């Protein structure tokens, strides 16, 4: 590539954690700045939200009317659009509000709810504009973001991991926490990419990387009930970080209202 590709990193409703995948790159952050032209990345300095770019990375979900507008403009200005993280890809943990009366919630936190402009839902970017690549995870892994960047710099579509966490657990030779300890692990339906860190820390995966390809959520739900979870608890397993993701939304809903009645 003769010209350095232009890159933007945009933020919507989120915790900023996925952008840290860039800020935590260390030496590679400087390499990235050398190889590309980072035109908009508010956290790191450059700000030009309306700039036309080759690659736009989007963090965060859409939860206000203004953001609905803004993401359209970003799309129009970007040749290749990548969502990073659970918020941008599946609506994020804040999408739990989609199950509730968000207006009532706002009223209970803010004394003057009329000041607060907000949609009743938190929705993924792909519900609003075309997305070229979705990188899952809450937060995304720096390794995956780097690999995607590298592929795009080589002019080829990035390769995405979509297998189950279980495979990575076994590669790490972690003892299965579900089989050996009866923990309600979400690994068998969850997308790998994190390195199967939860089971390696002796705990159950809570599905922060969203659904894997071909997830049998119903079978796992039955298994979790077999382990002693009541239906509402099973619902909460699915309705957590990626509550709106396909498969998780339905199986959770079928077991009852997750957290709020």
């Amino acid at each position: 590539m003769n010209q350095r590709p232009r890159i933007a990193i945009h933020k919507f409703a989120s915790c900023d954690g996925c952008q840290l995948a860039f800020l935590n790159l260390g030496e590679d952050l400087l390499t990235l700045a050398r190889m590309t032209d980072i035109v908009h990345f508010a956290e790191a300095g450059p700000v030009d939200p309306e700039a036309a770019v080759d690659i736009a990375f989007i963090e965060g979900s859409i939860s206000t009317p203004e953001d609905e507008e803004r993401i359209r403009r970003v799309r129009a200005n970007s040749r290749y659009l990548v969502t990073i993280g659970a918020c941008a890809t599946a609506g994020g943990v804040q999408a739990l509000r989609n199950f509730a009366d968000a207006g009532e919630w706002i009223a209970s936190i803010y004394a003057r709810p009329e000041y607060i402009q907000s949609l009743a839902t938190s929705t993924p970017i792909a519900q609003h504009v075309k997305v070229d690549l979705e990188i899952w995870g809450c937060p995304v892994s720096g390794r995956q973001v780097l690999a995607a960047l590298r592929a795009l710099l080589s002019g080829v579509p990035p390769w995405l991991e979509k297998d189950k966490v279980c495979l990575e657990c076994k590669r790490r030779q972690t003892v299965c926490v579900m089989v050996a300890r009866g923990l309600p692990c979400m690994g068998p339906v969850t997308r790998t990419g994190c390195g199967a860190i939860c089971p390696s820390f002796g705990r159950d995966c809570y599905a922060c990387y969203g659904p894997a390809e071909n997830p049998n959520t119903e079978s796992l739900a039955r298994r979790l009930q077999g382990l002693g979870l009541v239906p509402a608890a099973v619902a909460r397993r699915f309705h957590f970080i990626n509550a709106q993701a396909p498969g998780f939304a339905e199986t959770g809903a079928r077991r009852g209202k997750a957290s709020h009645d």
Partner: protein
Amino acid sequence: MTESRHIPVQVPVLARVEGEGALELRVRDGAIEEVRLRIFEPPRLFEKLLEGRDYTEVPDMVARICGICPVAYQMSAVHAIENLFGADPGPWVRAMRRVFYCGEWIQSHSLHIHLLAAPDFLGYASVVEMAGKHASEVRRGLKLQALGNEIIRLLGARSVHPVGARVGGFHRAPKPEEVSALLEKLRAALPEAEGLARWTASFDLPRDEQDFTCVALRHPREYPMNEGRLVSSQGLDIPADQFETRFAERQAPHSTALHCLLDGKPYLVGPLARLNLNLDRLPEPVRELVDGLGIPFPSRNMHHSIVARAIEIVIALREAIRLLESYREPRESWIAIQPRAGNGAGCTEAPRGLLWHRYEIDAHGKVMRARIVPPTSQNQSRIEEDLRQSLQRFGTDRPEEALRRHGEMVIRNYDPCISCATHFLELRIT
């Protein structure tokens, strides 16, 4: 001639809900009429999301409030819930939580100093520009940031939304080999961190003394992180669970973040407030380092915050080394918890200042109500007050660009959140 200038500055800001905000300034006849730090990040409604969840899910949920200081959210939450259940996880857990927190301070402060604040004081638009002339300092900063992340990973597997913390302790105890490998790196980094402190102290920082109230935790022996009483520079000294008796949140029409006030007045939390109030808790070597910096702490110059952060990196590094040097692998890394109904508060020192949580939980361990007061909503009124004073002193007749930059620099001293403290953009006059 009456000149009215209304100067909005786009600023992404952290708050209860961090993200986007703006600085609005109205100047009439050279006097600042109104300063507003507008936060319009869409609310993510975490307090409500928590309702109905099991207490065991809280640490993973609250981490998602902030990707830059998830450890702080997890720590305040586990303390609040353990207080509520009357559980004491014992000295190993206590020590490891401090180590965990040290990692976050080092990571967050290094990131702030190098990526956000230092370019301001040295006159660069971003760290990338700064790296040209100050390559070794930037590398040192990135290395310290990485080291902070590594400490978090030791106990939490990853640095953003770590997965190791639980009510009652940690899911897993590190292996002694991992601890000693890390210790070596920490020891090697100590001279670097001290160099960093001296470097920040050498900046030509604006002199701008102001009167403000500092609030921080205070512990009988240690530099505060996970526990202590709530104290202020004006004599406040109450147990942390009585926070609500003196501190109250108020909603401003221009913000989705609530403003928190102490007895109705603005106050400061964060590194400078912590240092000012805990100078006598510094370990001896740090004390000597601070004495040699030539800055008279306690300081009333908010621009000294960057130095306070660098000093806290040294404190955290030393503390992590001290605690890990006596590391023993425990039989169990967490205690069993017996839920009971009640109400409990927890307060810890996030990198950006006090982070207060309260939970009401039923007998089955289900969260009934939650309340979270993050550092930024506590600093928000103080930021506005500071802006008013410092911009007035700076000179309101200056070009907008200069006003904007100065305003941003002032805001960045509070490190309201990473996206807040950035180098932004165009200035619009309406």
